[in-house]
Each structure stands twice: as C-alpha cells, then as structure tokens.
C-alpha cells in the first residue's frame, strides 16, 4: 500500500486532494474555446453555447446540454437572438440572456418553457454583461447595459425589475462587479478604478474596504463566496483583499506572487475553496437532493432517498410523485382515461398531493378533459376554481366555489361570469345559486344600484323593489322623491303588503303638507317626522294646523296629549296649557302636567294640576311640587306602607318632627294590616 498521504497537497495550513470519480463522457473537438459555458451547482447539468456570436442563418450557434458526467441531454441549433450569458436557476432551468434583454428559459432537457424581458430600457441600450445569482428569494438576474446602468430582478418567477441608481463616472461596462444579498435585499457591488460602490434600490454609496492598500489604483476582479458571506477583491497591484461582504471586516490582505491575469484569477477561486472548507456552509435556499434528482427524472431513486432520509411524506415522496404525474400527463400517446387512472392509483391519498398542479400541467399541454378528470381528485376548492375558470368550466367553478364557503372565491367566479355571459344567462345562473345571488346583490347594493333593481325585477320581488324605491327616494329632491315613493307604493301593493303601502302613502301626504306649509307660512319642516312636525307647529302657535294633522293621520289620543303637553311646556305657554288641560278629560291623567311644569321650574303652575291627579299618583304629585304635608296626607289616606316610607325619607327629623311622628304611626298601622 502506498503512503496514504502521498496525494494530499498543502494549501496554507490545510490539505486537499483530488480524486477522479469518473471521466467526462463528452467529446468536445475544440474544447471550450469560443463557448459560453454554464454549470449548475451540485453536480447539475452543463450548458454550452458554441460560437454565440454567429448570426447568419446558414451558420448559427449550437446549444448543447450535458449531464455532469458529459452525457448529452439535449442539442439544438440556436435560432433566437445573440446570447450574452447562460445561467442555471435553483431548479435546474437554463436561462439564456440575450443582448436585447430578452431571457429565454429552457428545462434541462432543452424544452422551451417561457421567456421574459428585462424591460425597454435594457432593450434599447443593449446588454453589455449579465450575471445570474441565487438568493433566498429564488434565482435573480442582474444586467449592466450599454448606458452603464444596472437593472436587476431578484426573483425571475415573480418579476419585479429595479433600475439601480447611476454610478458616478462610469462609462461602458465596469471593470468588475458582483451581486450581493444583504439585509434581505439584492445589491450590486461595482468597482470603477479605485472606487468601489454599493448600489441598492435607492442610492449609490461609495465604500472603503478596511485594510485595502492605498497602493492599489484599481480593482480588476472581485468574487463573492458561495454563501454570500465573503468577498474577494483583486487589485492591479497584485494584491488580494478578502473580507466579509458587508465590507466591515478584512480577513486577509496579501500580495500574490502572480502576474495580473488575463482571464479569471485562479488564485482567488482557490482561496475561496479553502474558506469554504473552513466554514463549511451550505446556503439553505438550495434545493434538497431528492428534488434535484426529480428534475433529472430519476424518480425511483428520489423516492428511495426520501425514504432513507425519513423525509415527511408530504415533503418528500408526495412531491416526487407529483413531479412524476406532471411528467406523465405530457405523454401524448396515452389516453386521458388511462393517465387519470394511473395517476390516481399511484398517488392515491398520498399526503399533500396537489392535483390541481398536475391538472394545470395537463391543461398547459392542451389536455383539457384530462385536467377536469384530475381536478375531481382535488380536495381544495380554492385550488380547483381558478383552473376551472381558466379551462372555461365556469358553472362547475361556481358550484365548487360555493362548496368551499370562501366568498371571495364565489365573488371571483361571479365577476368572471358577468363579463363572460350575456345578462339573461348570467341572471339565470345566479337564480339557481342562491348563495351567489345574495353575494352579488350585496355587491350591487354598494356598486351598481341599477343592476340591483334589475335583479329584484327578474325575481318579481316586489317587497324588495318597494324598499329599493324608498331608499332611492331619499337621494332626491321633493318632486322626484314623491314620484319614487309612489313607485314604492305600487310595488308594496303588488307584494300584498298593505301596511307598507298605506304608511308610504302617509309619508307622501305628509311631504305634501309640509310643502304647502312652506309655501303658505314660510316654515320649512320638510323631512321632519309627523311627531316633530306637529310639535313644531304647536310651538309656532299653529294649533289649527297641528289639529288638522292629528285628525288626518289619526294620531292616538294619548300620544297627541303627551306631544302637545310637552310642546306647550317647552314653550312655557302656561295659559294654553291650562286651556288644554280643561279641554276634556286627559287620557294620560294629570301627573304628566304636574311633572312638565316642575321640569320647567314652575311649581306655581304645577300645583294647579295636583288636585286633578288620581289617588294612586297623588303622593308622587305632591312630592314633585315639594308639598310634604299633602304627600303625607295622601299616603296616610291610602295606608300604603311603601308610600309612607318614601315620604318619610324626604322629611328632615329636625324641621318636620310632627309630620314624621304622624307618618311613623300610620306606618305602624299599615304594617299591622
């Protein structure tokens, strides 16, 4: 056996060795010369674009995708625009960034997925350089344009383009730059000569890495570690600076014994390897191993690994199965029935399976019927409904939305139906779905009053139509108001609600009366209730008019007496009050007369009515006007223990001694009884 440490090489105070696991299976004639190359992390695929500068139709670049061991997975002629940069997303999709700012996405088997643009500004000034980067928010792209401006998107799956601020003095592409993730934000670190700047969304801030030698006149290269925690800078003086990405800590600064490199500085890369060994960090946002296998269609292996790792079912096996199913629905030669059956058999009740995702895939592949079949297995209506709408099964979508109880979902379908159907069909659909109908009514009540009326009309709901007109009447001036009230009366009659019809007619009569009054007397009482109208008339001294309303509206006597009594007392029209009290026998008795006078601090007037008060209220009347003797007499006469007690409690032992004694005697007698 050979010396075991023979193939370990020193690197500073650490050691490393190189083991060749396998040979690359590819045969590249010209090596990687004149190629754009991108390798996915964790042994992922490798993409090559040969001679990307070729533009003529007869000689186009060739795009090739290899597995990490060099097995060809895809190869095709590149027919789209000039590609400036290749890169892989965290889920092993290939990004091809074109000069015009368009980015095309392919899966690792070379199937086109979609494309998007980095915006007009990028399109006009063209892409000079681009970088693909990964962060907890997904895969991002940063671009520097011909106008020396940076545009950045942190997550290409939720595209929000940010144009970063201008870098002072920068012309053309910067000598070097890198993307950092700090404070939950993606930022660009850019060097221009000896100046270094950090660009965030709002500002361009100059920075001075601590310990960077003043000898350096320009930064020529920079590199960010895999974990985004460390940064390396290489200066034209041959120095390497290494530190934290927040540029607050310098870990190392030394001169390297190599000349200024033409291409990427190998020493810098090596230094990072060492730090990675030391730190040993894996960025947490990279995908777990089984998922990587899934993207490479190695399903059984992925399931085995999930089981071995004891990953919870819904996070592990279920996800693998979902990916399998998504792949299955793309098999064009198989019949819908067979696929649906195969999927339901294999997936069964596996935890957390999203059938709607699989159905979406099927629909995207043009297999609508299969999608509907698969959706039947979906337990979450919230997931079913949007897809059902997309595939134009709106009626089914509506019933599923209602089943879910999620009213927002119901509203969504209803709004969709409203735009899609003609009005008649739309109303008819709602009619069969009372839950949706009531929600739509709610919506109309706040947003579309006229539609609300149409809905009531369609249902011959005369009661609601009546209410509708009543409500509407308050928005109008007098004439129109009376008109609308008449419509309400008609509807109430149709609804056989005689009471509402009669009372609404009363309201119209009152409005007309108030209008006449305004014309004749110049008193504006419009909108007052009947009670307030009569009471105002009385306080104005318009007794005849008040009387007229009392008769015409058949106000009950008791209420009218209360009303008149209160109005006259408030006006302190004692003469009229007395006249009123004598006009006939009061239906409310005379205690209220006593009390209103007392309330107005007029005991003199109050006393006039005490004698008229019935016996059972007499004590109270006497007490109201402060007549203790009278109260005592009445209480004793009635032999009512409670009343006697009440009078007693008002007596002061000092001044009313005789009275107190009399009351106490009476109390004792009453108690014996």
């Amino acid at each position, binding site marked *: 056996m050979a010396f075991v440490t023979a193939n370990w090489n020193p690197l500073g105070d650490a050691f490393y060795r190189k083991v060749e696991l396998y040979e690359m299976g590819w045969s590249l004639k010209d090596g990687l010369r004149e190629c754009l190359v991108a390798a996915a992390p964790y042994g992922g695929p490798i993409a090559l674009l040969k001679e990307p500068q070729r533009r003529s139709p007869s000689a186009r670049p060739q795009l090739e995708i290899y597995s990490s061991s060099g097995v060809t997975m895809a190869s095709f002629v590149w027919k789209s625009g000039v590609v400036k940069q290749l890169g892989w997303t965290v889920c092993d999709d290939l990004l091809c960034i074109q000069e015009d700012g368009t980015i095309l996405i392919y899966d690792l088997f070379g199937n086109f997925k979609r494309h998007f643009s980095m915006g007009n500004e990028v399109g006009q000034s063209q892409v000079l350089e681009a970088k693909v980067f990964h962060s907890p928010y997904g895969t991002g792209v940063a671009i520097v344009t011909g106008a020396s401006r940076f545009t950045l998107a942190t997550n290409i799956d939720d595209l929000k383009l940010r144009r970063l601020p201008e870098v002072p003095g920068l012309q053309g592409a910067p000598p070097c730059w890198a993307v950092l993730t700090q404070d939950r934000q993606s930022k660009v670190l850019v060097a221009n000569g000896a100046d270094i700047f950090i660009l965030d969304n709002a500002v361009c801030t100059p920075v001075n890495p601590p310990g960077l030698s003043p000898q350096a006149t320009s930064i020529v290269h920079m590199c960010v570690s895999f974990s985004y925690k460390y940064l390396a800078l290489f200066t034209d003086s041959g120095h390497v600076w290494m530190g934290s990405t927040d540029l607050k800590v310098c870990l190392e600064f030394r001169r390297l014994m190599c000349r200024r490199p033409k291409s990427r500085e190998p020493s810098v890369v090596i230094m990072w390897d060492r730090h990675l060994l030391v730190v040993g960090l894996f960025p947490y946002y990279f995908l777990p191993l089984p998922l990587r296998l899934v993207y490479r269609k190695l399903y059984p292996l992925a399931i085995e690994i999930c089981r071995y790792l004891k990953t919870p079912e819904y996070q592990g096996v279920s996800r693998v199965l979902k990916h399998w199913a998504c792949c299955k629905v793309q098999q064009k030669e198989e019949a819908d029935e067979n696929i649906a059956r195969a999927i339901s058999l294999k997936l069964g009740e596996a935890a957390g399976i999203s059938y709607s995702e699989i159905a979406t895939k099927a629909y995207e592949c043009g297999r609508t019927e299969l999608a509907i079949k698969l959706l039947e297995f979906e337990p979450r209506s919230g997931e079913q409904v949007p897809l059902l709408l997309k595939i134009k099964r709106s009626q089914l979508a509506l019933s599923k939305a209602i089943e879910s*109880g999620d009213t927002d979902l119901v509203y969504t379908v209803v709004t969709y139906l409203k735009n899609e159907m003609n009005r008649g069909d739309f109303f008819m659909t709602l009619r069969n779905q009372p839950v949706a109908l009531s929600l739509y009514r709610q919506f109309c009540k706040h947003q579309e009053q006229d539609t609300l009326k149409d809905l009531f009309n369609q249902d011959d709901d005369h009661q609601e139509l009546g209410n509708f007109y009543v*409500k509407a009447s*308050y928005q109008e001036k007098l004439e129109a108001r009376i008109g609308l009230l008449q419509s309400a009366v008609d509807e109430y009659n149709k609804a056989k609600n005689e009471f509402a019809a009669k009372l609404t007619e009363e309201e119209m009569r009152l409005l007309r009366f108030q209008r006449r009054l305004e014309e004749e007397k110049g008193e504006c009482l419009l909108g007052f*209730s009947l*009670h307030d109208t009569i009471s105002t008339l009385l306080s104005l001294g318009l007794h005849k008019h008040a009387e007229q309303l009392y008769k015409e509206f058949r106000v009950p006597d008791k209420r009218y007496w*209360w009303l008149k009594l209160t109005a006259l007392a408030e006006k302190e029209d004692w003469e009229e009050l007395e006249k009123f009290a004598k006009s006939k026998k009061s239906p409310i008795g005379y205690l209220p007369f006593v009390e209103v006078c007392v309330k107005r601090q007029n005991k003199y007037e109050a006393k006039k009515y005490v004698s008229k008060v019935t016996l059972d209220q007499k004590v109270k009347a006497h007490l109201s006007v402060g007549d203790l003797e009278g109260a005592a007499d009445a209480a004793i006469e009635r032999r009512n223990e409670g009343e006697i007690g009440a009078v007693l409690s008002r007596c002061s032992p000092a001044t009313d001694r005789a009275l107190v004694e009399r009351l106490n005697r009476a109390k004792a007698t009453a108690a014996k009884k």
Partner: protein
Amino acid sequence: MAAHLSYGRVNLNILREAARKELREFLDKCAGSKAIVWDEYLTGPFGLIAQYSLLKEHEVEKMFTLKGGRVPPADVKNIIFFVRPRLELMDIIAENVISEEKLPAPREAHILFVPRRSLLCEQRLKEQGVLNSFTNIDEYILDLIPYDGDLLSMESESAFRECYLENDQTSLFHTAKGLMTLQALYGTIPQIFGKGECARHVANMMLRMKREFAGSQNQILPVFDTLLLLDRNVDLLTPLATQLTYEGLIDEIYGITNGYVKLPPEKFAQKKPGEGGKDLPTEPKKLQLNSAEELYAEIRDKNFNAVGAALSKKAKIISAAFEERHNAKTVGEIKNFVSQLPHMQAARSSLANHTSVAELIKDITSAFEPFSLPLFHTSSYKNFKPISGDNLSSESFFDNLTVEQEFMTGVDTDKINTYIEDCIAQKDPLIKILRLVCMQSVCNNGLKQKVLDYYKREILQTYGYEHILTLNNLEKVGLLKPQTTTRNNYPTIRKTLKLWMEDANEQNPNDISYVYSGYAPLSVRLTQVLARPGWRSIEEVLKMLPGPHFEERQQLPSGLHKKRQQGENRTTLVFFLGGVTYAEIAALRFLSQMEDGGTEYIIATTKLINGTSWVKSLMDRPEAQIL
C-alpha cells in the same frame, strides 16, 4: 404587557404572540423606514396585538388614517396600507397611490389585507390601474383576537347583519379559518357540537378544511375537549335584555370598545385641598377594562347590586394595609412595607376609579336596588333631570326593567304595552323602543298582526317613515314577526330550560340567572345542559329553536388521546356566531368557577355586542338629501 392572557386555563398569549410574530415578519419585508395608513376600524383591534412601540422597533415612523386625496408628506421609504378587504377602501387607496406617483420621489407602496387578501379587491385595484404599483400585497390573518384570558373576538361589526339579513357568509368563512388557526396552535378539537344554520355551515367548512390538509397531521396534544358553535338567532332574547352585571352595565350605558370605555370626567376629578375652584376636566376619562386589573377581575361579573359591598370590603382591606405602616418598626419591616407600596397604590387608584364608575352607574340605575320601591326612589327625585335624548333617568331605567321582566316571564306579551306606548309618545330613544318591541315579539313567538301594525305605525309616525326599512330588517332576521300560529312555544322553552328563576340571588349567586336578576340567558342554559346531562334530555326544546343541532367528531392521531385525571375539568370553547354579551360571558365564567361544574369555558365570538349596538347594526338609515 399582556400577561393576563396567560392566566387562564388556556394560554391565549400563544395566539397573540403568533400574531405579533407574523406582524413583525411582514414589517421587515418592507425594508427601510415606513408610514402606516390605517383603515380606521382596524386600529382598535390591532392595539390588542401590538402597541406602537413594536411598530416603532420595525421602523414605523408615522401613522395616518386612510382617507381620500394623498398620503400626507412624511420622509419615509415605504407606505403601507393596513386595510380590510373592502371595495370602497380600494378606491380610496387607488386615489392615494395615483397622487403619490405624481410626486418627484414617490414612496414605495404596500398593502396588508386584514384578515385575508381578496381577489375581488385586487381586481378592483387592477381596474383602477394601480395593482402593479404595490411592491408587496400580503394578508395578515387576524381572525380571532384575544380580548382577555378566556375571551376571543373577531370584532367583525356586521357579522350578524351579514349572516342573517344579507345571506353573506363571509364572516363564517373567517370563523372557520380562525378555528383552524386555533387548532393549529392548540391541537385538534375532538368533539364539535352545534345549534343553528350558521353553526352547521361553520362545522362543515372546518371538516372540509381539515380534509384539505390531509396528511399533515396535527401533533399537538388537544387543549380543548369540545367546541360548541351557537347561532345568535337560536337565542334572540338575551341580547335584548338589559345586562345587570357590572361590566354589562358599563357596556349598556357607556359602551366598551376594544377593551376601553370612555366615561364622563366629573366624578374622576382629583380633589386636592386648596384647589377648590379648579376647573373640572372636560376630556372623557378613558379606562382600560380587563382582568389584568385585580379589582376589576373580581367585580366585573358580579350583579351590580353586589358591587357596592365588594367595593367597601376592598376599601377596608386597602386602608388596613396602609395602616400597617404604624406597625412597621424595624428597618426590615419598613423596607418590606415600602416594597409593597406600588402595588397598594395601584390598588387604591383602581378602587377610586371603580368607585366613581359605580357611582355613575348608580345615578342611572339606583331604582333597581332591592330596597327601593317601584314608584319611588329618593335619588330619582334628587337628580330629577329632564327626560331628554339618550339620558336614562333612574326611574325610566327601573320601569324599563320591569317591563322587560314582565315580558320574560310571559306577562301580557300579547297585548299593546302601555309603557312602550308612553315611551314612544315621549319620543324616547328609538333603539330603546325597538329593543322592547322586539323582546315582546320574541317572548310571544310573534305579535298579533294588529299589535304589530300598531307599534310599527307609532314608530314610523314618531321617528320618521324612513324607519320602515329598519322595521323590515328586524322582521327579516326574526326579531319582529307576525304571529303565524296561535301556539306560543316560548313558555315551554322557558319552563324546560328554567329561563326564569324567581329567587335569583344577586349577592351570592347559585345560578346563572343572577346576571339578569332572574333571567338565565338561553344560550348559556343550552351550554350548561350540554355539559350535563346532555342535549338528549331537551330534544323537544331544541326542535323548537331554529336550525339543526348536531355533533361531529374529529379523529385524533393515536397517542394524542387525553387520559383524564380524576376530577380534572373539561375545557369547552363556546363560539357565539353573531355576537355575545358581557352578561352571557359572566354567566359562562360563573359556570367555569362552580365547584362541581366539571367544565371550564373559553368564549369566542364574531363580535362583543349589547342590545343597542346589535339593533343599531340592523338599522338602515338613508341619509336624506337637502330638500
């Protein structure tokens, strides 16, 4: 700060902490300084989750109220709209955002929907052309807010109206979601009981949502044994009655909002010697009411007639404690006394506050004290005030109570009531009238057409014809109705469930009926019977009440089945769909504390209500144009 939430059987602080964590996470998503623009309705409930200090820690520098026009200037990087998902609010936000974008340096805009984002609202923002202006559109799932150690509310003001009048069950969906959140934190609730249509709907949604999560088994040991879902319309009577507990009366008279009450300041004036002529304060006195305050926790659920005695007992204890200083001789004793001073001073100021509150209430209610007589009460004469506006004088308070109790005991419920007539004639507050008329109707299982029409006509002529809409609403929800059958089943319900207890003991209660001085709230009786002997014993009555009653069981993973210790109480979550009153809460707390009760209750609801706020939510008041 919210320690009182963790005192109870179930630590509701877990829920609050979860909500706070989520709020912090959202705030951090919007990096940099920020201003919050509030949907005004949300500020109260949010105050129970997070104070301003938490927001400040996360760079919230300004707060504004959402209104039309533009967001006021403030040197911040972000503007965050905290809103309920309502279309009318979307229009205001759009207006704000459009004017913001016209500025040379627009601030970044975000929306946080509470409790849930809504496709409908986003659609509206899209139509207004502003949907893409928002960097973050997110939702803050705040369904159930902890109000006290045993009380959760969604504070959804119009839940009852929406469910029973408008057939809009949005709040029930939120209820189901809220219950799922609760189960995620406190374990699956193995048993669900319910009564009423809404209860059935919520239970169905819960079971359905559980299927949606199939596979992700909840591994938390269940804290709740039972969930009881009750529709408010199963018991329309209770909220109409005037609450007679201390807390209930504070709510009836002054209204408690989000745990605070505003009171007339006069009685809280600090009297200091030599400052005789000092002006009285004019700002209302704001008090926070929850069990964190020891004295309040002690007296809140007592019948008001027992509060005076409790307060004077407390006063004696406190002054005795202060007297202790004379006995403190050694340095150690003095030190010990001083260390207790802050607590004693807090207790003294708490006592002073509640004595003032009790005096305020007494001025209005004193006539209902047991030693007073129906016709007379001295204080009612001393404080004889004009019968005006919203001011209840003690006499009218007592008369009102007498009529309520007559209705509840079934006296003359089929005739036109003279007291109601007189109140209308004197134009007492409309809501008072509506509460009484509705109560009569409920206690008579509907009114004769003639009686009903008479009341309605009186109301319309006195208060205005526009109230025809309100009356119509009350009929739709069943609070008012014409008698359809001659059979009135209320007496049967009353007798079977013992809703009226002649000898209610207000001082040392032995039955829940003390909370209404005789009337035992129907909803709480149903809860009580469910615990023992079970609903099977009252099948007949259950059939008379609206909606189905049901029982569901949720499977627990093996290993989570509780092994009950001998004498260990069960925990039941009672969820009132459509609102609950403080008196009902008091009754449930009474049951929890009963020695041999065997069950402790946690209460949840869509909204804390009283008869007034409840009836108000059912009113339609078209605003008249200037004629």
